[in-house]
């Protein structure tokens, strides 16, 4: 592994080693570019993962204190846990379920297609589907997405069997075991799925794609990656010319270092990314870096989610096998006659008993609740993931008084559902209920959203500097050598799980950066 000097101002500093940062770092290294990759978490390898929900949560999750506000139920049930993301090498690719769906073409043009929706800060992406399609193709090959590149689908588990039968009986047709970045056959040095059932806790087989054991070792093998773990980025510095000069970070012992950089790419997930820009405010940029639009931290999206679980007369054992084992795609399109704009996917999901007790009905107690849990092994589960409306007031902001151990303001995450989000969720709850009732459910449970796993939109992409933070390549409008490389870039959220799009954008961004560097533009 490479070691670059703190004073080496020829390196690219990438902050965050997840889907965006980990992929970008590798792609840059493959092109001969030196990269310092700062990761706040430790390097937990596959052997360290544990098949235990809470133990794994405390091993991998981002647990730094955050606060919440707004009318979302998370603010009441999990006031200091707005998001369920990871602080570890590999970021949230260690935890993700593996669903790898392309956006639908119309979803890049949400404002044009959906029209004016009161209260929604909709915008078209500056890019369209065709522009991203070749990068989607490369991302699918990189991740080994099933049902692409002649890779067979995964076998469905018991949870899928219930889901499939119900879905077919109510008339859905686009139902299968999904497009998953989980090997159904050995491929690219990764083995095939062993149906372990702990996808969220880090795949012990290494069958699921994670930057931890794909992109990062590949980048290290080039001799051009300097990965620094337990390195917490505190501040991005700039010069009088308005160019960023490097990143101030703290190491595991709390010692602060300044790494010089030719350019800086921020991929800290959509809560920490805007927080870092806001915490880097200076006399020249009093509202935070790259924030002339005032949009840094705004338009926070988390997908319209929720879950439907159901108890059956006979056993299901939903926890056996892949956590996200199948999908219904029939509701993903934009059909405003349903009473809302955009669409949603239904994807099977299971939780172990410890997490189901915490999330089935947060805060609930008493016999009515415990009776549900007594049917644990007779339950099936699915997750709703749909497009939510960007709203300017849904925002990541700096807490006015609370500070982290480095003296920096912690983030507050404010979220209110848009009426469109509510209408979609209600529709999806009804759809999920119909599916399970058709499969013979004795009881159906509508479960509120978990802490957010899909955090998006807080540095959104627009061709116009006045209404977006980054341009079509993720380069900030205000500072030419500062890039955003994670889901913060998303102009709108679409109905699909975001990782594949984050990876496709990162591959594309690496080409842009390499071209700009070779032409001396940055």
């Amino acid at each position, binding site marked *: 592994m490479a070691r670059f000097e703190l004073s080496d101002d020829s390196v690219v500093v990438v902050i965050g080693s997840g889907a965006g940062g980990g992929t970008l770092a590798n792609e840059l290294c493959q092109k001969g570019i030196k990269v310092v990759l700062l990761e706040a978490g430790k390097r937990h390898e596959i052997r360290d993962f544990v098949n235990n929900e809470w133990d794994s949560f405390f091993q991998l999750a981002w647990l730094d204190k955050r606060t919440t506000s707004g009318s979302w139920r998370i603010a009441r049930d999990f006031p200091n846990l707005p998001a369920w993301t990871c602080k570890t090498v590999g970021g949230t690719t260690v935890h993700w379920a593996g669903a790898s769906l392309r956006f639908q073409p119309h979803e890049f043009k949400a404002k044009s297609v959906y029209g004016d929706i009161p209260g929604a800060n909709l915008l078209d992406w500056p890019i369209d589907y065709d522009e991203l399609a070749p990068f989607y193709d490369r991302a699918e090959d990189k991740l080994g997405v099933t049902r692409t590149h002649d890779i067979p689908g995964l076998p469905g588990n018991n949870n899928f*069997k219930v889901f499939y039968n119900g879905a077919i009986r109510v008339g859905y047709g686009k139902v*299968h075991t999904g497009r998953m970045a989980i090997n159904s056959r050995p491929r690219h040095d990764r083995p095939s799925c062993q149906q372990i059932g702990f996808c969220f806790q880090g795949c012990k087989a290494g069958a699921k794609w994670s930057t931890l054991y794909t992109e990062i070792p590949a980048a290290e093998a080039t001799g051009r990656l300097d990965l620094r773990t337990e390195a917490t980025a505190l501040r991005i510095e700039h010069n009088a010319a308005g160019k960023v000069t490097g990143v101030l970070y703290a190491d595991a012992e709390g010692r602060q270092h300044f790494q010089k950089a030719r350019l800086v790419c921020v991929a800290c997930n959509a809560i920490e990314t805007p927080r870092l820009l806001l915490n880097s405010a200076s006399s020249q940029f009093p509202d935070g870096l790259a924030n002339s639009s005032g949009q840094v931290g705004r338009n926070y999206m988390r997908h319209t989610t929720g879950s439907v679980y159901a108890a059956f007369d006979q056993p299901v054992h939903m926890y056996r096998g892949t956590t996200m084992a*199948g999908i219904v795609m029939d509701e993903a399109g934009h059909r405003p006659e349903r009473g809302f704009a955009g669409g949603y996917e239904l994807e099977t999901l299971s939780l172990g008993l*410890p997490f189901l007790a915490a999330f089935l009905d947060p805060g609930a*107690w008493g016999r009515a609740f*415990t009776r549900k849990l007594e049917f644990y092994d007779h339950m099936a589960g699915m997750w709703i993931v749909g497009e939510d409306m960007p709203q300017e007031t849904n925002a990541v902001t700096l807490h006015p008084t609370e500070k982290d151990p480095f003296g920096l303001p912690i983030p507050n995450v404010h979220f209110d559902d848009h009426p469109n989000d509510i209408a979609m969720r209600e529709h999806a709850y009804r759809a999920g209920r119909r599916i399970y009732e058709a499969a013979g459910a004795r009881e159906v449970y509508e479960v509120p959203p978990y802490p957010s796993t899909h955090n998006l939109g807080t540095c959104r992409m627009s061709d116009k500097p006045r209404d977006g933070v980054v341009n079509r390549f993720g380069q900030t409008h205000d500072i030419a050598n500062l890039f955003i490389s994670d889901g913060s870039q998303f102009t709108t959220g679409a109905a699909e799980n975001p990782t594949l799009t984050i990876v496709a954008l990162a591959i594309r961004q690496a080409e842009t950066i390499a071209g700009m560097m070779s032409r001396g533009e940055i």
Partner: protein
Amino acid sequence: MPKYILDRRRFLRRTGEVVLVVTAAGRVIFTDPGRSFAIAMEVLDEHGARTLLAMTRALYPHPSIGDEYYAVVVEALDAEAKADAAVANLLKDGVARLDAAKGVPFVALSPGTQEEVLASLEGDPFFQKVRGASVFHFYNNKLLWRHFGYEGSSFEYGGYLRRGFQDLGWLPDPPPEVSPEPYFG
């Protein structure tokens, strides 16, 4: 004294009630008549421990599960109280309020009245502390998982690839184009 003294086979067979014993040294322990297990309190007194045990069971009642599993929650609360005086005070005051609610010790109330008293405290920091600890420690007990039909860690057994991940027999199997055959290597 070891933290747990238990005979696993007897432990799993029991569904009885725990008893509280104050040892000669003045220490409060949960045990059972056969002394097959024991959990010692460091901070909570006998009445406090007994009341929190009753509260934990009233919050997450499972009639077929013995008190010793709920005692694990009380042990965890006791440990928190030892580490943090604010928690110790919160629990002490909370127990007093549970008792004051009806003018009869909480442990002497009927299950229905216990539920009513707890409902009146919902949202209160004491209630939230005990509820949070209960939902975490009670359902995170591996010895209970089998009772609920949850099998826990699977990778050491090779996952479920050959152990029933698609053994559900009461619905038709999906066709191979939507759910291809498993790959066994």
